[in-house]
């Protein structure tokens, strides 16, 4: 029943996305620069949460480093279990987020695929993605003995109230002052506009790339988006993101024009919810592909362009508070369900696949309700997969295989 092809299949070769190689080069160059001693680059290093406002760091010539991106790399390299176990030996609970466990453990032994992240000069923590990051970054601030800035973004269950607005906007000013103090130089507000414009262009291009899957057959799937995502996360606000995504978008458009889909025979279109299962992306992608099921969209990768509507192009810094507070993960279950239904309609999917992620509580908490709301309002079949993004001990292959197979049998 194996779906792997031994010999090079010319059709499979044709379906490969060529831009993959360039992306690997960019990410390698990024990590080489980040790992080059500060004395040589003259640049400070900030560790920042994946949903944090990175653009002011770019303005200050600080290199942003993302423990969560590294967590994904650790997961994809199947190094997660060792590092999670190491964190558990240090006394951290197994219920704690596996990104946090992997990062906390990796910092002490320079673990993971690139031998650890460069030491930070400061930590920037925005809790718009979860509450765990606050304690996690406090642990790292003590360990590295560096300043920590916490941007507290209250959850906007249904609306962005004037109290939230005032509260977060005040903190953005404090954030700028914090950077000026740590970097020892004044903030360049003109440059902020330029970086902001690049960030907006990058996000728009990312949305356009994700939207190429509106075409049937989809030229890529969410498993490809999981890979291409790294740039908009790590280098948002830089010219190279814009250049690369323009190239990627052109390739996707060319694939559409040539009728090349990621799946040779796209029969079902599905929507993925929650983080990828990094150590099993290949297995899952082949598993769904073997059933002619294309995961054409996901709530995760679209998270890095979902608050574009709140960004003010003419006053980027002024709109930073709102655009970083009103992200998908920082809204209530009703809003998440609404957004998922919008996506289901937009991408014309036949079903919804939800990864109930042991690590990511804010992402997984409302999923049973979301499942029910989607079924009530759209009658779409849903599949729940219980797993974890990095900790492979929470993945049962035969169980999940049965669920996927049965789900597809149900769609038939």
């Amino acid at each position, binding site marked *: 029943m194996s779906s792997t092809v031994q010999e090079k299949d010319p059709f499979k070769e044709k379906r490969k996305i060529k831009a993959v190689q360039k992306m690997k080069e960019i990410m390698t160059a990024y990590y080489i620069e980040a790992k080059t001693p500060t004395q040589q680059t003259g640049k400070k290093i900030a560790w920042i949460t994946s949903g944090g406002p990175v653009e002011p760091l770019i303005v200050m010539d600080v290199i942003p480093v993302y423990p969560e991106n590294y967590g994904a790399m650790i997961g994809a390299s199947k190094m997660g279990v060792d590092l999670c176990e190491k964190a558990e030996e240090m006394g951290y609970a197994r219920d704690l987020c596996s990104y946090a466990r992997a990062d906390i453990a990796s910092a002490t032994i320079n673990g993971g695929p690139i031998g650890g992240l460069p030491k930070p000069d400061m930590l920037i923590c925005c809790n718009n993605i979860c509450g765990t990051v606050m304690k996690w970054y406090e642990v790292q601030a003590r360990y590295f003995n560096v300043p920590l800035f916490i941007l507290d973004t209250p959850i906007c269950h249904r609306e962005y109230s004037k109290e939230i607005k005032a509260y977060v906007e005040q903190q953005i000013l404090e954030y700028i002052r914090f950077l000026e103090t740590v970097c020892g130089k004044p903030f360049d507000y003109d440059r902020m506009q330029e970086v902001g414009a690049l960030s907006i262009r990058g996000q728009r291009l990312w949305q356009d790339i994700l939207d190429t899957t509106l075409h049937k057959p989809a030229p890529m799937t969410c498993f490809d988006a999981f890979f291409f995502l790294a740039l908009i996360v790590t280098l948002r606000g830089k010219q190279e993101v814009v250049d690369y995504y323009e190239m990627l978008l052109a390739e996707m458009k060319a694939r559409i024009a040539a009728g090349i889909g990621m799946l040779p025979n796209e029969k079902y279109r599905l929507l993925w919810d929650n983080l990828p299962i990094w150590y099993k992306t290949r297995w899952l992608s082949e598993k769904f592909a073997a059933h002619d099921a294309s995961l054409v969209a996901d709530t995760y990768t679209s998270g890095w362009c979902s608050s574009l509507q709140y960004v003010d192009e003419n006053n980027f810094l002024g709109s930073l508070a709102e655009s970083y507070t009103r992200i998908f993960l920082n809204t209530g279950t009703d809003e998440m369900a609404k957004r998922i239904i919008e996506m289901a309609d937009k991408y014309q999917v036949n079903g919804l696949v939800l990864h109930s992620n042991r690590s990511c509580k804010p992402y997984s908490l409302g999923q049973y309700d979301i499942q029910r709301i989607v079924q009530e309002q759209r009658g779409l079949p849903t599949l729940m997969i219980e797993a974890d993004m990095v900790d492979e001990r929470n993945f049962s292959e035969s169980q999940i295989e049965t669920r996927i197979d*049965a789900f597809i049998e149900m769609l038939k």
Partner: protein
Amino acid sequence: MISAGVDIGSISAKAAIIQDQNILGTHVILTGYNARNAGEQVFNELLMRLSIGPEGIQRIVATGYGRNSVTFAHKAVTEITCHAAGAHYLQPETKSIIDIGGQDSKAIVIDSQGKVKDFAMNDKCAAGTGRFLEVMARALEVDLDAFGHLSLTADNAAVISSLCTVFAESEVISLISKGEKRANIIAGIHESIAARVIAMGNRIGLQAPVMMTGGVAKNIGVVKALEKKLKTGIMVSENAQVNGAIGAALIAATL
């Protein structure tokens, strides 16, 4: 048309052979170490008993955890779809199925044609499954076959709150040391299984009439506990354990 279904579960392997919608025979053996051998053995033994040569079977569908290791099958179909087909065949009015097997429990909602509308499965954990009952039977030194009837003599079911097999076993051991009656402990175990599987069923809108399938359906104590909690009767066919294999054979006939 004669067709066969082979259901390789974690504890037992089942086979069923049908001809024109009639069950010719069914067979159950222990799966043991080698799922592939178990598939061949259970199938061949049934053929022998029915005096049919392998060439007499036109279509075979394999199901269960070992479905992909049955090399002589024409197709592999999940036990969820097969249990739905089997239950619909045995009792066409069935709307929901509770299937408790060796290593997992499932709730399945089906439509009037026996097609799966939705399903839920237990998490990767043995609690509330056949294996869970085996562990408890060993801790209580009671033969598993006697479990069901013994629990019906309980006067006050004990409370087992742990959802984990290992922790539930420690709970049972502490109840034993406190002098709790065996029957009450067993009734408590059955109620904890029922609570767990019903919670799963309610998530997907379980509705009556409900049929119970899988090996654990042979345990009258679990059936009664489910009925008590659901406040409705549950249909249990004498073919409950081989229902998946029957469903597989029915699907095979349509290939």
